[in-house]
């Protein structure tokens, strides 16, 4: 066989192999088996005097129609149509070692996080008594390990490592040096916003060198959504486990409750973040992303609820009744709508033309904006009357940030629907906006406490 013939045969086999790899029911091992068959058939035909490309064609033809073959494989291996998480693949040596190390590192870090959260006990800080300390520092027990996992996974250099360490040290300083009034609003706000600010640090590490690119940030958005879903699932499993544990030990007259609240809950909750992150990474290409699926389900429903709400307000003429937490509730509504928007954007093919779902999406965003405008209008009056508190300023700031994001998103989306702009611009707007949330969170953590005298 001449060298050029050989090269073209290899190219053809490569193409054929890739084509087979795309069949879900045919695994890599089977492809290797079929390839061995194909190569032997080609060799025999070439020996019999055929040119290599003819031999390849005949061999492929004898192998049979790939659709039929794939159906046959699916019938024999019906379980393969259900994508399974293969933690340690049984064949193929290269990736096997890597996935195993990956799992070991992830579980090692999960264990470390579980230990870290109990470390303060050595210094006499108990979870039940020092609620403030734990609330302010919660993210610092978990996120450094998560960031560490991605530093290891993306093999980031010492430069990233040093600023990452600086960021976490700074966070620890700001969380602990201020003389917070115990149980005060400033402390609660700092505890709530520190994780948001640090999540950006995790994002930069997650994206590796791609944080400056929209695609890198979009991947991080996808990761965050999936992580949340896996975390909730793990938490549900944990709740079932706990219920059984408490019940069974109760039956033999042993109280399991203290062990649960002092050990299982905090350690499990910390470790689960790393396990969930590892699962998201491992399942990334194995399974359909869940966040966009849930988005598809709930976008029309939320759009309908908002439309009915606005219609009712118009019809009855009721203003928004300002309760204590209404501003927070409307913030959460905007966050939710933003989430729905973000995850449908993350799963949408930017090339495809506008469709019915995009219209629903715009209805949802515009509905949320109108509902929020109603609430803001009512709240402005209240702030005028009663003045500023840290809670109100924080909620108002978040409202403004979310409102700006959603309003401009609506403009871009409508432009896209009318064929005047590309979908990619909306995507870029969303990914460019991410640092603003973290910046605001940082302001709340660093500037608010002194500004409001630590109340």
């Amino acid at each position: 066989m001449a060298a050029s013939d050989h090269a073209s045969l290899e190219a053809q086999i490569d193409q054929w192999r890739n084509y087979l790899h795309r069949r879900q029911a045919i695994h890599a091992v089977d492809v290797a088996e079929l390839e061995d068959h194909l190569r032997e058939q080609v060799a025999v035909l070439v020996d019999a005097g055929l040119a290599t490309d003819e031999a390849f064609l005949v061999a492929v033809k004898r192998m049979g129609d790939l659709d039929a073959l794939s159906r046959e494989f699916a019938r024999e291996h019906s379980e393969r149509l259900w994508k399974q998480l293969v933690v340690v693949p049984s064949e193929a040596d290269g990736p096997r070692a890597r996935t195993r190390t990956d799992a070991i590192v992830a579980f090692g870090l999960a264990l470390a996080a579980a230990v870290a959260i109990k470390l303060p006990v050595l210094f006499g800080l108990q979870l039940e008594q020092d609620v403030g300390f734990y609330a302010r520092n919660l993210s610092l027990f978990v996120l450094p390990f998560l960031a560490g996992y991605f530093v290891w996974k993306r093999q980031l250099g010492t430069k990233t490592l040093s600023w990452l360490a600086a960021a976490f040290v700074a966070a620890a300083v700001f969380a602990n040096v201020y003389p917070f009034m115990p149980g005060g609003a400033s402390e609660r706000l700092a505890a709530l916003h520190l994780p948001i600010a640090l999540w950006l640090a995790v994002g930069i590490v997650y994206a590796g060198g791609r944080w400056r690119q929209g695609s890198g940030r979009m991947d991080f958005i996808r990761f965050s959504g999936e992580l949340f879903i896996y975390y909730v699932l793990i938490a549900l499993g944990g709740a079932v486990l706990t219920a059984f544990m408490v019940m069974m030990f109760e039956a033999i007259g042993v109280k399991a409750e203290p062990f649960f609240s002092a050990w299982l809950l905090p350690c499990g909750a910390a470790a689960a973040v790393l396990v969930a992150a590892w699962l998201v990474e491992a399942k990334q290409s194995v399974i359909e992303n869940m966040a966009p699926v849930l988005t598809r389900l709930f976008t029309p429903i939320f759009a309908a609820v908002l439309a009915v709400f606005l219609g009712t307000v118009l019809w009855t003429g009721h203003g928004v009744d300002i309760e204590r937490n209404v501003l927070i509730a409307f913030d959460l509504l905007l966050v939710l709508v933003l989430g729905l928007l973000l995850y449908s954007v993350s799963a949408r093919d930017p090339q495809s033309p506008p469709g019915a779902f995009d219209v629903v999406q715009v209805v949802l965003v515009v509905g949320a904006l109108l509902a929020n405008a109603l609430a803001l209008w009512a709240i402005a009056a209240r702030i005028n009357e009663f003045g500023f508190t840290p809670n109100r300023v924080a909620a108002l700031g978040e409202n403004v940030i979310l409102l700006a994001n959603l309003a401009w998103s609506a403009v871009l989306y409508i432009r896209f629907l009318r064929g005047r702009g590309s979908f990619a611009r909306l995507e870029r707007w969303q990914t460019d906006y991410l640092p603003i949330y973290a910046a605001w969170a940082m302001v709340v953590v660093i500037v608010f406490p002194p500004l409001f005298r630590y109340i």
Partner: protein
Amino acid sequence: MAINKDLIAASSTPIVLAILAEGDSYGYAIIQRVRELSGGHMEWTDGMLYPVLHRLERLGQIEARWEIAESGRRRKYYRITAAGRDQLAEERRQWQAVDATLRSIWKALSVAGPVIRPASAALSPQGA
């Protein structure tokens, strides 16, 4: 002459088991052996052999192992198990019964020709 699909499917188990009973083998060689044995009448689509092999493997009638072939490539070899030999014996009994039935009816037809006669009468000239 092309043998119909159902027959090929029905006979694939005993044929594969019997070939493996001769000795360990792998996909391509099994297909070659089938061609050789059938004189080219049993035209199997090559790929279709593999789901059959995987089914027998799942049923525990054969077992597989990867080896480096003389060509330097990794190749999956199959070996018949004890359960496979039992299954082969069972298949053999069943096919022999089918075969015996068909043989007697062919014989009856060839002797009788187009005219229908009682079975006993049909057999008697053969004996004579």
